[in-house]
């Protein structure tokens, strides 16, 4: 006899977005169950102990987090009280070159600009200009847009056209990241630096309607932060947050089916046959193909929507091959002698010498070839957070963007794993010559296929969980017309990275979905959500008022 449970709401998938969404609604008084397929909660917040040497912890997925402690959910849900703390290394990023020069991204923009200046005074000037012009755009448009359900473009245009920061935003809205970069920067290294950092956020170089994200990134700053005690600490502590807010969760059992009765989601059936009734809602943190095609089933959807769901695109350029090392001593970069400050950097980029390298990588990923010229970004987490390695020892990793469908079949990664690891290590060694055999205690790899194996939600190893292109961004994410976290099945919501604003550890899809669900259920909001629409209207009113006053 199958077990039966009763809840107000069920959240499918204990990734960070699912847990944030459940936390808000649990604190609103809803009785919620979060169901996680893996033994460990956290989704991409995943860290493993080295399998040869204990005490070395590798951050298997997400590592570079952006200003989480400032975010509304972090504060609303009192994550600091759960013990979460972030290190903020400065510089945030250093790109090393073989001629022992570097480009760096510092907390102080003038120091960033100084590193650009050595290659191109013109690019330095351009960078300073964009940085200054885009400060209000980020503050008043891009940041609140991230943490609000998206506003359809026509309405948004009308709200933005009357504002200087709005016009700035719209000016680049129709472009691609590459168009913006080529137009504003001339030096190949500067182009590569900025282009790669955009790509590492999950953007596509040639995707229309995403070009504005590059100046936004420049003005926002690339200052990644490191979670104390590995990324998984955030996942674990989000689970503790759930318990504190009365939310139940279970792990190690997946959802087999979403129950739909009369066009309404009424619960889920788990892999072990358990039936969980959901009185108010079901929120899915997993991608729309899994949610609709597998869990809801085409029989509960109209054929046009099913076709849309099945056609949801995954990125060919976000999957990663990770080389993780347990080391006697940290990597020492060739640039350190002349520039000791680079040792403090969180992110290190090696092997990327020209913009051409980046372009070629896109071609290789899309055609399923091994990258013709490896270049990578990585870090030495234990340098900033000594708890991640035994005393005096080090952990370090490098990520290579790689195709999932290697030579047409992802299983090929199991065959080339060892060989490709050495290829990446060889490139890394050119920039960090102390990565000798004596120094390396243990090697550990994660292939694009492994990403999907661990996290069934990340189809094709795409940690963005859906290509970030104009037709799958903002109010078009996951599909045009369905950018509001609701679905054609009443009571069924999406709350994961396949929704606005996409992948990465932002918590925004979960935060935004919680608001939508709470409003639909008529719950009193105990938190004060950001409201871009209201903010833009007020700004327009102020502009109008000052025009009247001036007139």
């Amino acid at each position, binding site marked *: 006899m199958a077990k039966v449970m009763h809840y107000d709401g069920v959240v499918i998938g204990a990734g960070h977005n699912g847990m944030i969404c459940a936390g808000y609604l649990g604190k609103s008084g809803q009785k919620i169950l979060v169901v996680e397929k893996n033994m460990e909660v956290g989704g991409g917040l995943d860290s493993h102990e080295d399998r040869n040497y204990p005490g070395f912890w590798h951050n298997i997925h997400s590592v570079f987090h952006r200003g989480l402690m400032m975010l509304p959910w972090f504060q609303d849900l009192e994550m600091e009280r759960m013990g979460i703390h972030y290190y903020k290394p400065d510089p945030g990023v250093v790109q090393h070159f073989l001629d022992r020069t570097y480009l760096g991204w510092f907390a102080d923009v003038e120091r960033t600009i100084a590193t650009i200046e050595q290659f191109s005074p013109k690019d330095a000037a351009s960078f300073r200009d964009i940085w200054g012009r885009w400060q209000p755009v980020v503050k008043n448009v891009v940041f609140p847009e991230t943490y609000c359900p998206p506003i359809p473009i026509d309405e948004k245009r009308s709200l933005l056209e009357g504002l200087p920061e709005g016009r700035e935003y719209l000016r680049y809205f129709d472009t691609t990241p590459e168009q913006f970069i080529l137009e504003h920067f001339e030096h190949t290294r500067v182009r590569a630096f900025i282009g790669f950092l955009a790509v590492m956020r999950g953007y596509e170089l040639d995707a229309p309607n995403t070009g504005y994200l590059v100046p936004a990134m420049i003005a926002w700053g690339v200052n990644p932060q490191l979670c104390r*005690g590995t990324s998984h600490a955030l996942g674990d502590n989000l689970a503790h947050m759930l318990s504190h807010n009365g939310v139940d969760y279970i792990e*190690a059992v997946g959802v087999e089916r979403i129950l739909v009765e009369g066009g309404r989601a009424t619960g889920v059936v788990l892999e072990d046959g358990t039936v969980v009734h959901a009185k108010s809602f079901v929120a899915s943190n997993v991608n729309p193909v899994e949610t609709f095609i597998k869990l809801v089933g085409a029989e509960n959807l109209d054929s046009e929507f099913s076709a849309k769901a099945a056609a949801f695109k995954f990125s060919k350029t976000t999957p990663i091959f990770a080389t993780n090392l347990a080391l006697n001593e940290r990597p020492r970069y060739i640039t350190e002698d002349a520039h000791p400050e680079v040792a403090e950097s969180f992110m290190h980029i090696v092997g990327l010498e020209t913009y051409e390298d980046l372009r070629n990588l896109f071609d290789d990923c899309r055609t399923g070839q091994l990258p013709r010229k490896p270049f990578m970004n990585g870090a030495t987490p234990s340098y900033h957070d000594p*708890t991640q390695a035994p005393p005096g020892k080090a952990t370090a990793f490098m990520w290579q963007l790689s195709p999932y469908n290697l030579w047409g079949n992802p299983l090929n990664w199991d065959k080339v794993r060892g060989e490709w690891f050495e290829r990446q290590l060889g490139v890394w060694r050119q920039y960090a010559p102390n990565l000798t055999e004596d120094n390396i205690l243990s090697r550990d790899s994660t292939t694009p296929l*492994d990403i999907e*194996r661990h996290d069934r939600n990340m189809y094709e190893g795409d940690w963005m969980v859906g290509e970030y292109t104009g037709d799958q961004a903002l109010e078009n994410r996951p599909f045009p017309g369905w950018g509001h976290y609701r679905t054609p099945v009443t009571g069924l919501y999406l709350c994961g990275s396949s929704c606005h604003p996409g992948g990465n550890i932002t918590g925004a899809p979960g935060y935004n979905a919680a608001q939508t669900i709470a409003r639909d259920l008529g719950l009193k909001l105990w938190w004060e959500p950001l409201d871009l629409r209201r903010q833009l209207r007020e700004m327009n009113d102020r502009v109008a008022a000052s025009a009247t006053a001036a007139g």
Partner: protein
Amino acid sequence: MDENWDVILIGAGQNNFALGTYLGMAGLETVICESRLENGGRLFSEEITLPGYWHNSLAYFQDNREVSPVWRELDWENGHHAEFVTPPVISSLLLPGGASVSHHQDLDGTLASLAHHSAADRAAWKDAHERFRGIVRDIVIPSYYAPPEAPGALEERIAADPAGSDFLRLAHMSAAEATEHLFESDAVRTLVLSQMAIPRGWAPDYEGGGREVLALIAGDERPQLARGGSHSIAQVLQRAYVMHGGQIRALHHVDRILVEDGRAVGVRLRDGREWKARRAVVSNVDPHGTFIDMVGEEHLDGGFAQAVRAIEPDEFSYFQVHLALKAPLRFAVHEAADGAVGQAMNVNYGPRSVKDLQAMWREIRAGEFPEHPCLHVTCPTWFDALQAPPAKHTASVFMPVPYQLKGHQPEDWVRLKDVFMEQVLSALREVATNLTDDNIVMKVPMDPCYLAGRWQNMRRGSVWVARKTPDQMGDNRPIPQLAQYRTPIQGLYQVGVATHPADAVIAGSGRAAWSVLREDLGLGT
């Protein structure tokens, strides 16, 4: 933030989770500092071969759950979503020529299997089960959840049972003596004795091991697999603890227990932060770690420090091989002869006789990788498909080995482990009929030195921390000065596997220590 607590608990194992939950229910603010990232200590499951394959890399089943008072009191089952599966056969010992002998969950199943080997042993098992069952269930197991009693008190209660004096006579023997006394067949004796080291921590010649033999026969211990893997249990304990207000800090290594005027007042973390404990500090770490490393000998009298240093570790540690498989491990020849083998949670292979086990112990004590190994093989996915990707499987092999190999340093294991893994697999292939190279997707060995580095309280790979010899058991565990969970440092308490009941049941010392803390801190009833 985080600087002041009522009670600081060191180590996120089952005992501190239980104790912390009781303290939270009493309204105290507590924090658990865990030096690893994952909680649960030995209740651990990980994707050590490939993502999607969850291997239990130490504890792989749980017994005596349903009779545990702590399980009931903390509502672990209903309140926090624990799910278990119960394999019908506990252990099958594979013998030459396709023969086997099996210990079933159900008494009649066991008796039928024993009858193939000896009618007398069948009768002896049945008799022991029936006569001693009440003593084990009603007296012995409840004693695991309370502080150890004064010498003689427990025995007096047992002696009052009609079968009490027979029970005590057998219980005082070694496991080997008790087994020899009860059974005539070498197969039956080997079945029992092969389960003494793993998973119980007893050598066959330790005095008092007879009690373990009787618990195995008469205890209806009902070992089960936690659905999804052993770590699920830790997650349940964590949920209960956090739900009652507890806080957990992972990768927070405690370097020092702060002592002022003979009283524990807080801890210093490896990163230099100091946290205060208003009421108590509780250590779930081994006594050497607690007192020599964290308290420091300057706060201890010399005799006590000497006694802590003299605690004897286990004589053996665990060597493990974890396999990601396409098809579940099968023992076709043995299964054809007795279907029970195909339903066994635990398949033991290696010892054909008590003599072989004796040889294994000689080899372990001489520091050799056993030439007469005792392999404990489990294929959890046969019972719980959720521990591997759809239609895929996991299997694990556990075997007792010395912590330090003769002529080697413990650190040498990392170089030797692959060779030993192949040796283990080739031995296993004698009976595991589908363990072909093609079936193995990935294989990973885990050695004793790795174990000791991972769980630092398992000093010298000692899973039970303090050897289960009579001088370190009961009200002497691990030394008389620590046996009541109090320590020479006021406000500092010792729990964990080094203390009574030596991990024979879930969270026993945590609950027993709760009764001590409740009294000391005046927390009412």
